[in-house]
């Protein structure tokens, strides 16, 4: 009797385990589940210029040009283009492309999309900087001309940011409609299925896609912000691919037989910005606590601080190998970077000598401010830099703040809305894949009207850099522009306008058998995941 009960219990338990296994197994081998580290605010491609939004939009929508995995421009909905004169570009649109609702793609859809971008109500971050000043003229159904008031060197880069929506399907839809699926009609390799804010985003293969068809019948995105949870999700098989593998886990996961890792150097540089605005800087004091004149205005002091940083040690110990020492604003594999700049070598004696030559043999006191939790290992990184500065006699304190507080104070927390701090650590990613926009924002003279220096929280200003930059940004010829930008970079970096520390790496982990093609722009696309 007892025996029989035990046996039936055993078989019941076995049945339960079996049932569990069936439920837990993926429904179809052709489905793909990806965990993102950040959450999109909407699936309306024109609503919010935010990395997760842009990343998801690219599955359903396409633009005239697109970035490949190294952020080089490739044709997409525009098949070819030519520059008619410095102010006019002509684009041939791809023929026989159909939207997901079956309607054909024409010049009208391009014009509609460009008109929609500045008119999305209550957009927290409109994409207007990519459409502003551009007037579009329809030549015929598959030809358009774009005119600009001044030469626009970054035309192709800007076009890659404007997703084309169907003029018919999206004519009068709101952002909320699109989140609910109404009007989420594009030409992309996947069709919109479902968006549940905070939980998931689901797309299905577009079998009528004009390009190469995707291998995945259905792709679900999950949003898992917590690092250990994301790692556990891929280890447990809840998802097939995760992005942003935490640096602390990367080495261990690389040894995990169930997983395959892929990584790429990102376009994000981590750097220090130095106060160049004031004659006396609020967070710099003499060794005795007395007010001194701002030593950061002395080139020798700036060079000394850069030499004091042991970049290889930071990459090795703090970033656990998930970074590369930086020499400038974007990695030198990109066009427009200087091949002459190398990461500044670690040299304590040289740094002390420079400080002595600058008349500060005993150093000074300094506070570095930075965000807490905005960049990979940011707090640990600032602490390490502070220790390295202290080693050359610059007694350095660290103060980290929540990003929401930090950026607002670092940009305009001081008197008359000036930057508040003496030295900050921050990061910058070159969305366009070349240094032009980065230089303009970080090292161009602060001028709100001209749109330059928008992230110049040190208020560095150098007339020669500004001149080369202005020339570069209005030179349509790629080689000439690259040369001008490289020269501007060299001058600003040799003048230590910022102190570059490292470029972050992006790492993905995928189930064995899947291959992730790593991208430099930190995007995770289903289009980049293939079976091996």
């Amino acid at each position, binding site marked *: 009797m007892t025996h029989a009960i035990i046996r039936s219990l055993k078989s019941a338990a076995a049945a339960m385990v079996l*049932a569990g296994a069936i*439920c*837990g197994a993926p429904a179809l081998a052709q489905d793909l589940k990806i*965990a993102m580290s950040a*959450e999109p*605010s*909407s699936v309306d491609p024109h*609503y*919010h*210029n*935010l990395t997760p939004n842009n990343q998801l939009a690219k599955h359903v929508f396409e633009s005239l040009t697109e970035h490949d995995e190294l952020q080089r421009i490739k044709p997409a909905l525009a098949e070819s283009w030519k520059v008619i004169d410095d102010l006019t570009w002509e684009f041939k649109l791809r023929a026989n492309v159909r939207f997901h609702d079956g309607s054909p793609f024409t010049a009208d859809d391009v014009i509609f999309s460009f008109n929609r971008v500045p008119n999305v*109500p*209550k*957009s*927290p*971050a*409109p994409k*207007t*900087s990519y459409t502003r000043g551009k007037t579009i003229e329809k030549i015929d159904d598959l030809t358009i001309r774009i005119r600009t008031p001044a030469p626009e060197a970054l035309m192709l880069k800007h076009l890659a940011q404007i997703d084309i929506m169907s003029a018919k399907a999206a004519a009068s839809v709101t*952002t*909320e409609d699109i*989140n609910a699926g109404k009007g989420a009609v594009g030409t992309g390799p996947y069709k919109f299925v479902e968006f*549940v*804010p*905070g*939980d*998931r985003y689901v797309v299905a293969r577009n079998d009528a896609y004009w390009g190469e068809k995707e291998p995945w019948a259905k792709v679900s995105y*999950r*949003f*898992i*912000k*917590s690092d*250990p*949870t994301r790692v*556990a*999700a891929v*280890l*447990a*098989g*809840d998802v097939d691919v995760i992005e942003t593998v935490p640096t602390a886990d990367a080495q261990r996961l690389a040894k995990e037989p169930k997983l395959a890792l892929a990584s790429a150097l990102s376009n994000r540089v981590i750097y220090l910005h130095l106060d160049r605005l004031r004659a006396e800087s609020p967070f710099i004091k003499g060794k005795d606590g007395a007010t001194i004149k701002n030593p950061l205005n002395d080139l020798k002091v700036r060079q000394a601080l850069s030499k004091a940083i042991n970049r290889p040690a930071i990459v090795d110990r703090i970033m656990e190998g998930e970074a590369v020492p930086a020499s400038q604003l974007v990695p030198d594999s990109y066009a427009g970077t200087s091949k002459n700049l190398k990461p500044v070598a670690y040299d304590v004696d040289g740094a002390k000598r420079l400080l002595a030559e600058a008349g500060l043999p005993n150093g000074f006191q300094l506070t570095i401010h930075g965000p807490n939790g905005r960049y990979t290992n940011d707090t640990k990184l600032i602490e390490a830099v502070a220790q390295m500065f202290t080693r050359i006699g610059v007694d350095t304190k660290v103060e980290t703040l*929540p*990003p*929401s*507080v930090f*950026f*607002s*104070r670092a*940009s*305009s927390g001081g008197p008359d809305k000036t930057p508040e701090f003496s030295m900050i650590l921050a990061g*910058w*990613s070159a*969305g366009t894949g070349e240094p032009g926009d*980065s230089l303009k*924002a970080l090292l161009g003279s602060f001028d*709100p*009207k001209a*749109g330059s*220096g*928008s*992230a110049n929280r040190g208020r560095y200003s150098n007339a020669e850099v500004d001149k080369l930059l202005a020339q570069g940004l209005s030179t349509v010829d790629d080689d000439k522009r690259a040369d001008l930008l490289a020269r501007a970079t060299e001058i600003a970096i040799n003048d230590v306008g910022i102190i570059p520390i490292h470029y972050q790496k992006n790492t993905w982990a995928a189930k064995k058998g899947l291959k992730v093609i790593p991208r430099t722009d930190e995007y995770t696309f289903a289009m980049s995941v293939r079976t091996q």
Partner: protein
Amino acid sequence: MLAFIIRRLAQAVVVVLAMVSIVFFGAYVVGDPVWMMAPGDATQEQIEEIRRTFGFDQPAHVQFLRFLADIARGEFGRSYVHGSSAIGLILERMPATLELAFAALVFAILFGIPLGLYAGLKPDHWFSRAVMAGSILGFSLPTFWVGLMLIMLFSVMLGWLPATGRGPTVNVLGVETSLLSLEGWRHLMLPAINLGLLKLSLVIRLTRSGAREASLQDYVKFARAKGLSQGRIIGVHILKNILIPIVTVLGLEFGSLVAFSVVTETIFAWPGMGKLLLESIQRLDRPLIVAYVMVVVLLFVTINLIVDILYSALDPRVRITGAES
């Protein structure tokens, strides 16, 4: 009874108004949301444009008055980030959180009361001692650590249960629930245990001390002398008398389960209100933060009301009258 409820609701309005003001100005002091909204490469011009769109260029008191005026019109603010109604966003996620809190509470009661009774009635038994020692662990281990350990053990190493997220949902009378499928329960199990563990310890301790005290009372001795069965003595005479403090505490704790499930929701990527709150704070999405506080205050007020009413059902000595309370 009616006067009692009306008075309570009037109090609630005052509490909500006070909380909303505190939270609004608190969030205002924390920082300028424009820096969390604008992309890193935004120009000064774009930043000013965003400020104007959302009215951040106005002084704090003007923004607050505008906000109050909106509320008076029944418009409780739109999330800066999502662009849709803040209350709507919270209510959309509420079923997930309620489901989780409910499951956690059931877990705590289902295991807590029997274990606590046993420990209270047989305090010297080794099993009782083990339960009490275990409940200390339940109190003192941090939720996030326990959560990660549960995931490591049951999802990563044993592979029994999914590590993250909520199961498939079905719409029942307008509410999305995942409680109707096996897959839904499999997803719910770990987060519910994680969230309920602390409450389980609490219930064990409350029940045990109540049971120990009650079992020495005269009425229990008398019942025993009358020759009543052990089951009836425990079930009717002891349990019923010790339920009052347990109901009070659990009522309030249910509120805190709902309001502060933030850690569990984040660790298990559970798409509830707590996760939404955390993200809103990080992004300084003021309307959402304020709306969340309003919802939570109302929730606590309602729970307190229900607890008070339940009291009178459990203990006839407590009478709810307008004058008394």
